[in-house]
């Protein structure tokens, strides 16, 4: 077996273009996928132009609200690309450098302040998008709507907070500042106390009855306005989300990106190499000669899978090392990575052997490997809920038959310390490796035909 392994490596070395493609192409794809997924995190690039004059404040009841820090708040949720003017913002969007442009016009604060006047004008912000494709358009819409909902919430909370402060002043009394002057507000509570202390001094009669009514009004108002404060607060966000995870644990996005990149790399390298090198034995007419007692069919399959596992292992580890440049990896879990790569490579190698045994030529088998692995990889990345339940069940059943998804699950579990256990995916891969190995062994019988 070792001599055949050496021969395959010699052939691989002697085809530098093929070897380079086999190694560089998946690494390139993996890095692009890794970059794309990790880049498109919760911080899309948005061109940002804030034209509101410095020092402008929303005024409530004659008092200026403190700054809500619009710039900081928006730029904490998106990657802000500061632009100088509207034209520059438009160019950034048109060129595709940014997903959208958000322009806060100079009159936004004035319009907000007009809401409490007899001539209210609706405050508006301007959004520019490049809807070059429907997926991107939907993404932009979702992001901008989410961003504006957040901005509305911030403003509403600030106004409600101010309203609550005035209510508190009305109930409990205190100092009130208007145009630089300070006033003492008595408050309903103190008013009621003063009136209650005056009551014994009044003789029984209509005056005292009237005083009792005023004291009662002050008490009732105080109690009800105590409730009104929190109610105004709640109006800004009447419904809160109480999220409970009932199944699956979502790994951090960068971990998922690395898992996808590593699994794609492993899939293409192992599948193409094993399938191609097995088909080569047939293309070179060598199999009948080998099968005359030089190596058993099972030994030949084992050699090809070993070749795939070895090369796939090295390439994937190299790629993970490269990804370390973008995202920090938990190297204390390296033992689990190796297990995931080994089991994944073995199952993918067995699947490659089955494909290689089914085809007569290297080119045909390479095409077959692409045709099988690409759709399966695509289907494996569809999350539940993205399609109907019946269709998703069918996708689950199909993807369970191919090693891509369990390899992805094993890689994710290995990379994410808070993730699910790795035992299930490894068992799944072991079963697939055995099943595909058996299939390859049966298909190899056709090889012997002269």
């Amino acid at each position, binding site marked *: 077996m070792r*001599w*055949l392994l*050496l*021969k395959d490596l*010699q*052939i691989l070395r*002697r*085809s530098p273009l093929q070897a380079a493609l086999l190694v560089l192409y998946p690494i390139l794809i993996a890095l692009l996928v890794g970059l794309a997924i990790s880049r498109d995190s919760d911080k899309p690039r948005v061109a940002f132009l804030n034209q509101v004059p410095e020092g402008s404040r929303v005024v409530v009841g004659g008092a200026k609200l403190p700054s809500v820090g619009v710039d900081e708040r928006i730029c904490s949720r998106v990657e802000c690309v500061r632009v100088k003017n509207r034209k520059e913002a438009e160019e950034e969007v048109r060129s595709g450098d940014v997903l959208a442009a958000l322009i806060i016009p100079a009159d936004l604060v004035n319009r907000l302040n007009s809401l409490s006047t007899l001539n209210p004008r609706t405050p508006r912000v301007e959004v520019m998008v490049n809807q070059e494709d429907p997926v991107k358009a939907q993404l932009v819409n979702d992001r901008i709507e989410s961003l504006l909902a957040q901005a509305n919430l911030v403003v509403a909370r600030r106004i409600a907070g101010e309203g609550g402060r005035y209510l508190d002043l009305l109930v409990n009394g205190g100092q009130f500042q208007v145009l630089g002057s300070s006033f003492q507000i008595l408050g309903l509570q103190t008013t009621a106390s003063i009136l209650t202390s005056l009551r014994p001094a009044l003789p029984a009669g209509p005056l005292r009855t009237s005083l009792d009514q005023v004291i009662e009004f002050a008490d009732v108002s105080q109690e009800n306005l105590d409730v009104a404060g929190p109610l105004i607060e709640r109006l800004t966000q009447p419904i809160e989300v109480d999220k409970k995870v009932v199944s699956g644990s979502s790994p951090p996005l960068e971990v998922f990106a690395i898992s996808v990149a590593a699994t794609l790399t492993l899939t293409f390298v192992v599948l193409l190499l094993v399938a191609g090198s097995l088909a080569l034995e047939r293309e*070179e*007419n*060598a199999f*009948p*000669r*080998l*099968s*005359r*007692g*030089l*190596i058993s069919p099972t030994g030949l399959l084992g050699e090809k899978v070993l070749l795939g596992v070895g090369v796939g292992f090295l390439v994937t580890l190299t790629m993970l090392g490269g990804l370390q440049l973008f995202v920090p990896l938990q190297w204390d879990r390296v033992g689990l990575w190796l297990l995931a790569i080994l089991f994944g490579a073995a199952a993918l190698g067995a699947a490659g052997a089955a494909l290689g045994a089914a085809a007569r030529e290297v080119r045909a088998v390479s095409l077959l490997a692409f045709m099988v692995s690409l759709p399966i990889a695509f289907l494996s990345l569809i999350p539940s809920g993205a399609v109907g339940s019946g269709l998703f069940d069918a996708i689950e059943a199909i993807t369970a038959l191919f090693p891509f998804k369990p390899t992805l699950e094993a890689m994710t579990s290995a990379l994410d310390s808070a993730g699910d256990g790795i035992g299930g995916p490894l068992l799944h891969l072991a079963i697939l490796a055995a099943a595909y190995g058996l299939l390859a062994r049966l298909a190899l019988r056709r090889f*012997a*035909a*002269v």
Partner: protein
Amino acid sequence: MQAREIVKSFGSREALRSVSFEAGAGELMAIIGPNGAGKTTLLSILAGISKPDSGDVHLPGGAVGWVPQQAALYRRLTVEENLLLFARLERHEDPRASTEEMLELTGLSERRGEIVARLSGGNQQRINIAIGLLSRPVVLLLDEPSVGLDPRQRARLWEFVSGLAGRGTTVIFSTHDIQEAERYGGRLLVLADGEALFDGSPEELREAVRREAPEAADRDFETAFVAYLHHRGH
């Protein structure tokens, strides 16, 4: 080597119908017949690659070398790497010495470092045969060994194969070139539609052709042979 009543079918098609023959040490036997006669099937059964549906093959003690019609070697390896690989797979005690021996025997020592894909068809066939000889076989089976070779390469090939037979190796080869079979085969086995029609020397075949197809007896041997097959219902 002895084959007794070999029968082989592929689905409903009978590829070999109770074919029997014997070949002694040093004999050079040609299996001839039109395309689809069953020559390759018979050789693959003798080589142990295919199993017959019935009948059996008795082999002398020692290895059987097999040289398939299409060169079975790795075109991206060098001449030397190919020989060394198969010598190692054959578990030779000294694979390098065996490789040297085959390079000498085939006259390819000078071209040992060349990638096989860059060699001519004739030289590729020489390596193909050399690999078949690595096991030092007592019987060598060659499936249409001269296909694709020019006359000069053919002459060198047959000189080489005749030398092997002269040293005691039983050589059985298939061909559909009647004149080549007549020239180099000490004995001829004629197959047609899986049936063994004749087993004897070239002279005996000429006699049989004259007897069964007298109208073609004066024409060239190939034409007479075709007439003979026609008379026999093929």
